[in-house]
């Protein structure tokens, strides 16, 4: 009906009144409101008259329900109000019951809210780009490797070739990542950890907000920079820094062409300083035409709606045409693929990613566990509520006889559940807000909950409703469906199927919590194993020093000499890579070997003191000796290499190493772990070479004092770059950080799950005892001892626990074996863990069932039987 044609009051307002007012009052209010509406419609117009009608109608309803007498409201609403009051009274009266339920629900919810906040944050990476679904990053696979291998490095000419040949491509950007460069402006000197030379088109691909300057002019010139707002503040103290000059490494001067807003935290790449790609690449003499040189990252913006798979399929032909790399049976050397920008945050399998990547399945595991814990707390509610409904039988029976219908009772129980869940929500939410900063710190993510976001509150409300239904439906159905006569008689046993369900639920809880406990213990054991394993090198008191200043790099040997002269420094050495993660590789080659027999091996160049520094011991032969000049051509192998080559007598054999140089094996080193413990030890050759060095120092004296001395030596060589040092131990730990994280989270989960399971058992025990109180009384009268009664009750719980262990053991074994298989070196899950878990849970079960069982066992039978 057309609004302007309607004469009467708004229909919805009338409907509302009719729903919520009793007949007596309804007609009065309708009359008055209609008269007012008619009056207002002439003086103030239809719209305002309607508004006033609504306002008055709501006012009438409010006064009827909250300030007047409820006798004027309708039956349903009066019942609802009555239900609320009654529920509140019930909760207040049974304080222990309510608080147990509350604690269980709140802790389950707390965990769930935390995890969901974390997972939502991780999934939100790069979701703010306007053309987000059309942005791709190119990655490649390498043909001819035994293992599956992908990486993000792409050749320079790829981007232009795609833009020229493929109409689907709207724009491309090439980019390279340079680390830790020194910038100076205004007398302020800072090290910029990330400097990205990139094509100006990146500002068209990504959604970056300009603050100063015209975004289309950002980094157009070869010597132009664009910087983020915080960088501009850092150097110039203001945001409008366009036209200012910045000097890099005291040599190259750049002009700021634009300032952009800091990119959000949830960006996989966060630009701080970007420069013109072509200008910088030319300046530093890096090639842009070689199809087999892959230092660059390539971003592609496709036209809207382009199928990435179809586009991907065109890339081999592109490579064939431009790189003269025909597709034959073996395929090409490199195959290119597209991944969406949002996926880059999760592509932990693709090497050389920018920024930290996250394993998606780990997020899903967390979600699953959080859901399971939540489910456990719902089960608790179900068990406790059904147990308690027994004690409310008389009340419910009376209500039924007086005329309460099933749905009224159902509603009453549901309202009670809703109230408790609501309370748990409030508790959990308050705790959540208090603990979120600590949790955010723990997972190292800037997690927040937007209190002002309506969407968030709607989610919470919907979640509350779902949880209420999940927890409250079954007890409500149960309690409202008993026969009123048997209720008043007190002859309710709950029925066979009900018992099955309750026992099943408790077993389910036990399975989950025991499974988690086994998991947590296994993770803990493996981490302990990692800590204690002999990696073949020492991590104690080893410091890593930076060599990024050219002054240091050019005078490395005299700097190292200066360092070794400090008393308290035991050894100074450099190596191509740290022993924790050797990266260079080569093919094992020696005179007389066929090309197809050559196996891949890792390679590392070190200085003389390397073995001494890391306390890596020799198995055969000797280490490099500074006195023997011929050691420049010496080669040291590890045990694995000797085994792989099948050499009986390795010392003195000739090998061809790096760039065709010939050398002789002078020693064999005891195997040490050249990768994290996830990977097996591979063949390795070590040569004497001080290039591309990672500089390390082992300290024997007092750490603080020696560090002070080192800093003095450093400053005499590099007055410009600030002193910077790291501990080798931390570097070692980095490889296992995600595992430690997982260990702590599983630990927390386990504790909560166990607590919730305890509450569940407590509830079941109380139900059990309540139900059998008379049977137990008769047993006692007939001569059963307290001990016998207790044993009888406990045996049931032991049975349930055994059943749970029976299910949990293979499940946990399966999952944990899968996790452990990710480590080449790992502990074996022994029976010990399972036995320990069983005993632990036995104790827990007895403790939580104990209270009721004990009370039932020692109770005077007269108390339970005196009504018969």
């Amino acid at each position: 009906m057309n609004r302007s044609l309607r004469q009467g009051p708004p229909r919805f307002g009338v409907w509302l009144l009719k729903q919520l007012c009793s007949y007596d009052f309804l007609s009065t209010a309708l009359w008055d409101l209609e008269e007012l509406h008619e009056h207002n419609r002439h003086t103030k117009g239809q719209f305002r008259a309607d508004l006033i009608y609504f306002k008055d109608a709501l006012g009438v309803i409010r006064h009827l329900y909250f300030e007047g007498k409820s006798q004027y409201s309708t039956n349903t609403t009066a019942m609802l109000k009555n239900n609320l009051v009654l529920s509140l009274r019930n909760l207040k009266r049974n304080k222990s019951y309510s608080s147990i339920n509350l604690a269980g629900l709140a802790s389950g919810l707390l965990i769930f809210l935390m995890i969901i906040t974390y997972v939502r944050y991780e999934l939100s990476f790069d979701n703010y780009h306007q053309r987000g679904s059309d942005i791709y990053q190119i990655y490649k696979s390498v043909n001819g490797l035994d293992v599956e291998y992908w990486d993000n490095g792409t050749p320079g000419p790829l981007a232009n070739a795609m833009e020229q040949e493929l109409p689907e491509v709207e724009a491309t950007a090439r980019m390279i990542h340079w680390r830790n460069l020194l910038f100076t402006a205004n007398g302020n000197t800072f090290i910029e950890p990330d400097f990205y030379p990139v094509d100006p088109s990146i500002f068209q691909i990504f959604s970056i907000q300009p603050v100063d300057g015209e975004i289309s002019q950002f980094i157009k010139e070869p010597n132009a920079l664009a910087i983020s707002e915080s960088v501009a503040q850092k150097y110039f103290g203001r945001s409008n820094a366009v036209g200012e000059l910045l000097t890099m490494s005291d040599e190259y001067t750049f002009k700021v062409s634009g300032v952009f807003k800091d990119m959000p935290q949830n960006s996989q790449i966060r630009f701080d300083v970007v420069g013109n790609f072509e200008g910088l690449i030319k300046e530093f003499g890096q090639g842009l035409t070689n199809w087999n040189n892959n230092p660059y990252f390539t971003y592609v913006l496709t036209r809207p709606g382009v199928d990435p798979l179809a586009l991907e399929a065109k890339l081999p032909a592109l490579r064939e045409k431009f790189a003269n790399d025909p597709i034959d049976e073996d395929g090409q050397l490199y195959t290119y693929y597209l991944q969406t920008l949002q996926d880059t945050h999760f592509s932990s399998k693709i090497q050389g990613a920018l920024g930290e990547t996250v394993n998606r399945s780990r997020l899903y595991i967390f979600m699953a566990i959080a859901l399971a814990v939540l489910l456990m707390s719902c089960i608790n509610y179900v068990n406790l509520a059904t147990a308690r409904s027994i004690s409310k039988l008389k009340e419910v029976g009376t209500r039924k006889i007086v005329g309460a219908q099933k749905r009224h009772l159902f509603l009453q129980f549901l309202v009670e559940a809703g109230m408790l869940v609501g309370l748990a929500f409030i508790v959990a939410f308050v705790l959540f807000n208090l603990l979120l900063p600590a949790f955010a710190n723990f997972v190292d993510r800037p997690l927040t909950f937007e209190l002002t976001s309506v969407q968030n509150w709607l989610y919470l409300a919907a979640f509350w409703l779902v949880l209420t239904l999940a927890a409250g439906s079954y007890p409500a159905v149960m309690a409202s469906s008993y026969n009123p006569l048997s209720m008043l008689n007190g002859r309710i046993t709950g029925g066979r199927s009900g018992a099955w369900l309750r026992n099943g639920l408790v077993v389910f809880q036990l399975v989950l919590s025991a499974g988690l406990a086994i998991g947590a213990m296994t993770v803990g054991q493996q981490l302990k194993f990692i800590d204690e394993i002999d990696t073949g090198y020492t991590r104690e008191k080893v410091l890593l020093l930076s060599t990024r200043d050219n002054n240091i790099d050019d005078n490395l040997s005299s700097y190292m000499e200066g360092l070794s002269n400090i008393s308290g420094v035991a050894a100074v050495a450099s190596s191509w890579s740290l022993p924790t993660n050797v990266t260079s590789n080569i093919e094992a080659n020696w005179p007389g070997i066929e090309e197809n027999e050559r196996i891949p091996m890792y390679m590392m160049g070190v200085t003389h003191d390397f073995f001494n520094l890391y306390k890596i011991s020799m198995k055969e032969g000797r280490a490099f000796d500074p006195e023997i000049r011929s050691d420049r051509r010496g080669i040291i192998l590890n045990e694995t290499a000797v085994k792989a080559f099948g050499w009986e007598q390795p010392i003195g054999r000739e090998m061809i190493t790096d760039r065709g140089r010939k050398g002789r094996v002078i020693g064999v080193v005891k195997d040490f772990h050249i990768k994290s413990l996830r990977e097996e030890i591979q063949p390795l050759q070590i040569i004497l070479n001080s290039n591309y060095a990672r500089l390390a120092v082992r300290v024997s004296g007092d750490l603080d004092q020696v560090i002070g001395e080192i800093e003095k030596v450093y400053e005499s060589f590099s007055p410009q770059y600030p002193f910077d040092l790291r501990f080798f131990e931390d570097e070692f730990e980095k490889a296992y950080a995600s595992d430690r994280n997982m260990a702590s989270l599983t630990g927390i989960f386990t504790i909560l799950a166990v607590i919730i399971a305890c509450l569940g058992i407590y509830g079941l025990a109380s139900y059990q005892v309540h139900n059998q109180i008379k049977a137990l009384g008769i047993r006692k009268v007939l001569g059963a001892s307290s001990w016998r009664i207790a044993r009888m009750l406990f045996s049931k719980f032991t049975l349930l626990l055994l059943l749970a262990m029976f299910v949990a053991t293979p499940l946990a074994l399966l999952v944990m074996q899968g996790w452990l298989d990710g480590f080449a070196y790992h502990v074996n899950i022994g029976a010990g863990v399972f036995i320990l878990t069983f005993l632990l849970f036995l104790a827990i079960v007895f403790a939580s069932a104990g209270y009721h069982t004990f009370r039932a066992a020692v109770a005077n039978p007269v108390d339970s039987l005196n009504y018969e």
Partner: protein
Amino acid sequence: MKKLTLGAFEELVLLSVGVLQDNAYGVTIKIELEEQLKKNISLGALYAALQRLEEKGWVDSRVGGITEKQGGRRKQYFDITRAGVLALEEVRSMRNGLFDRLPAAKIKWLDS
């Protein structure tokens, strides 16, 4: 028996019902009060006050004005009862008594 009390708003409503005589129902009372008080009165608050007055026996209500056209709506007229008038008088005399005891000099001083 508990002494019945007359609240300030209730007093005003009761007075309006008396003043409006035969034509006191929701809308007219509301308009009367709004004119006197120079502010908006919520219909809900008015109903709540009328309910309370009716329970205390100070107003009577009768139903009138049902016609075919109005389908389910009806006017509910209110009349002040004798007890209502007495209650008003009692409040008034109590107030006058208090007012008389206010020192004249104080009023003068406050006026100036």
